């Protein structure tokens, strides 16, 4: 369980990124922070592994304040997938993934073996593992980033717009894969995106943020859609202007679901 207690962050240059933030993230679930650029998502995420220290309040992991933990040890115990993958350009793919394990004291051979295993979990084969990051496509690099985050089998996985740099098709593919992985792995995932569809696709709990890390609404995707807290949320999730309203039309005896602009979205069963 991750807990934010009245957390605030003002950077040394005076920028107030987060005013006062409270949230509980249950274990083994996926929580998504979603909000427009600059609203403090990354800042909040990085407080969990002490890449950012809050200037007010506390962040607790399983009731232990992270401020009391050694930052290097803490970071080794938490998976972190960065925007644009953030791979080390001078290490081969397999070594990029194995690094986390090596830092944790795993032997060379075992680390390599495990790295290859996670790489295949995210759909990369051995020939790709021998390349340098610069030789991979953006989508492949992001997969490596995910593999690196998973390598040490951490309980907590932080993902900062991990699929930001890929085209929409690969993005959907990676999302599906993450969902599949999560059913297997049961991690506590904190995921950052500014794409509400991605948030709804992945989150058990979705946190919609406004500027300054202010929470506009927290809840399951269906609950947010059913009961948007205010106009901001309604417009953010696309409920205004009929963006998400679907209706049913009869076509040749079947019930076809049609969206606001008249395009068919699917068929209603039962």
């Amino acid at each position, binding site marked *: 369980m991750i807990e934010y207690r009245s957390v605030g962050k003002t950077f040394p240059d005076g920028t107030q990124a987060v005013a006062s933030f409270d949230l509980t993230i249950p274990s083994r679930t996926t929580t998504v922070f979603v909000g427009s650029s600059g609203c403090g998502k990354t800042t909040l995420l990085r407080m969990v*592994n002490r890449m950012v220290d809050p200037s007010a309040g506390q962040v607790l992991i399983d009731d232990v304040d992270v401020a009391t933990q050694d930052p290097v040890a803490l970071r*080794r115990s938490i998976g972190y997938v960065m925007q*644009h993958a*953030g*791979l*080390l350009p*001078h290490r081969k793919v397999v070594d990029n993934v194995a*690094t986390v394990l090596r*830092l944790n004291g795993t032997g060379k051979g075992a680390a390599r073996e495990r790295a290859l295993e996670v790489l295949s979990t995210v759909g990369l084969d051995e020939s790709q593992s021998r390349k340098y990051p*610069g030789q991979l496509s953006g989508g492949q690099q992001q997969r490596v980033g995910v593999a690196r985050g998973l390598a040490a089998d951490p309980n907590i996985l932080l993902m900062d717009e991990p699929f930001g740099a890929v085209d929409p098709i690969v993005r959907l593919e990676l999302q599906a894969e993450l969902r599949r992985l999560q059913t297997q792995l049961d991690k506590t995932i904190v995921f950052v995106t500014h794409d509400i569809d991605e948030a709804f696709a992945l989150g058990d709990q979705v946190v919609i943020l406004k500027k300054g890390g202010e929470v506009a609404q927290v809840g399951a995707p269906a609950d947010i859609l059913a009961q948007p807290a205010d106009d901001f949320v309604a417009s953010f999730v696309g409920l205004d202007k009929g963006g998400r309203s679907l209706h049913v039309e009869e076509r040749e005896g079947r019930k076809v679901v049609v969206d606001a602009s008249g395009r068919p979205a699917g068929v209603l069963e039962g």
Partner: protein
Amino acid sequence: MEWAWRNRDQVLELFWQHTWLSVVPLVVGFLLAVPIGWYASRHPRLRGTLLGVGSVLYTIPSLALFVTLPGIIGTGFLDPLNVVVALSIYAVAIMVRTAADAFESVSPAVLDSATATGYSSRQRGFGVELPLAGPVLLAGIRVVSVSTVSLVSVGALIGVASLGSLFTNGYRRDFLTEIVVGLVGIVVLALVLDALLVLAGRVLMPWDRHSERAKGPFWRRFAGGRVAESGTMALGGDA
């Protein structure tokens, strides 16, 4: 040609002498410049001062340095150490700037990612920053290598034997062949050292061949823009 063959023992002797007089300052300069450059890249306020001191040192004429060093470090006048120390000073002076540039060229995002992965700052320094600064450092040391090899010959004027002695001798005896042999020897040495450096770069930094820079024209392969500039400065300086 014949002259060179008849005197091959002496020429070879001078070649080796020239080699170690060049290599030692290179190594010393590199080992000193890397930490200083790293420090300068981390402390923007000190950067200007450190690099300024480097530039000033580099403007001292080499002959003047060769002649005054014995008085300062208490060596004999003919001691090759004078040349080694003087050239080490030049090597540091040039390489500090390149080293600072090299460390600044490392992407902050990569460093951030290494920290987030759980590298301690020491592990990050040796495991990420140093190797990633490598290509620019290599470009710098290649420039210094050439300039050091040519500066060693100036030492012949104060009686420290090197291939440069063939110049002084040949000039005194008005014997062109000897001068040409000395010149060829110096060029060969410079090329061999450069080739070794390039080879070391290939072996130690295999990833660089696959990078964006490596795809560009060959002269950009090892030199970033800023290095090319400091390179011109260095080459101009030893004239």
